[in-house]
């Protein structure tokens, strides 16, 4: 393994999250009951997605000032892994919604907005694959990636708060404390966010290395 220490740290954190997430006491709330534990698994998917998309944004900007194939690789693979996390977040959210809100898809503003932002990011991949020339492809998709990020932020963080939403922290009530997080839950939730995000970064690192190798191989022959 390359850079093994943070990977071992990731594994340890997530083992703790899985074990602690099931066994540590949680507040007894109506409707939610034990599903409150989804906070350790569903919510970190979105945190991870946003952090990984942010990495992609940074590298897209980097690419525009310093156009190297490596910068482009990081940007693409960040989008790829971000989309994976986004879809996992969407699917787990639907499962959770069915049994607490009563519907798989209730047209909740945050559900709609996150689906739209995933579509915007999927369009990034379509756009990339529609171009053959490497530099042109990298430059145009870097610009598009910046737009995609700029569209995602209001979709996820601003618009859902302007209307009523079933999600906590919405309906003009932003902030973190509305999660009814007690001390015990924070003890698992924060490591969960860090752990799942690092797992995504691990997958991303592998994909970047593979992409760079592929590129080198193509250009030598």
């Amino acid at each position, binding site marked *: 393994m390359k850079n093994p220490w943070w*990977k071992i740290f990731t594994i340890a954190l997530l083992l703790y999250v899985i*074990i602690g997430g099931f066994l540590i006491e949680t507040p007894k709330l109506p409707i939610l009951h034990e599903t409150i534990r989804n906070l350790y698994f569903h919510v970190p998917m979105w945190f991870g997605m946003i952090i990984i998309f942010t990495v992609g944004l940074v590298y897209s900007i980097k690419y525009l000032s310093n156009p190297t194939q490596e910068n482009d690789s990081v940007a693409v693979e960040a989008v790829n892994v971000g989309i994976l996390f986004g879809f996992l977040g969407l699917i787990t959210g639907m499962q959770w919604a069915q049994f607490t809100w009563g519907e798989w898809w209730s047209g909740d503003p945050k559900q709609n907005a996150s689906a739209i932002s995933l579509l915007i990011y999927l369009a990034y991949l379509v756009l990339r694959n529609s171009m053959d020339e490497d530099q042109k492809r990298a430059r145009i998709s870097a610009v598009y990636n910046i737009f995609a990020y700029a569209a995602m932020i209001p979709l996820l963080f601003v618009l859902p708060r302007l209307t009523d939403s079933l999600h906590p922290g919405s309906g003009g009530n932003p902030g973190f404390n509305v999660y009814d997080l007690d001390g015990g839950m924070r003890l698992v939730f924060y490591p969960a966010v860090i752990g799942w995000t690092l797992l995504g970064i691990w997958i991303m690192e592998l994909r970047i290395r593979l992409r760079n190798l592929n590129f080198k191989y193509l250009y030598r022959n």
Partner: protein
Amino acid sequence: MKKSGVLVCSILFFAMNVFAEESENLFRSSGKIYVVVSVLVTIFLGIVIYLMVLDKRIGKLEKKEEEQENN
């Protein structure tokens, strides 16, 4: 030497028995939630091992690539 080996073995065997009995109780306790925990831990470790193998293979390819570049 032999004697201590037998001693260690018998202690290990005894400890395993105790552990097995304890975990037997643990895994059959009220809601059997520990069964779910162990299943998830297994799945997670499976995925992690998968990633580690991928990591190693990519590392090997990178080494080969470097050697090719130097030639």
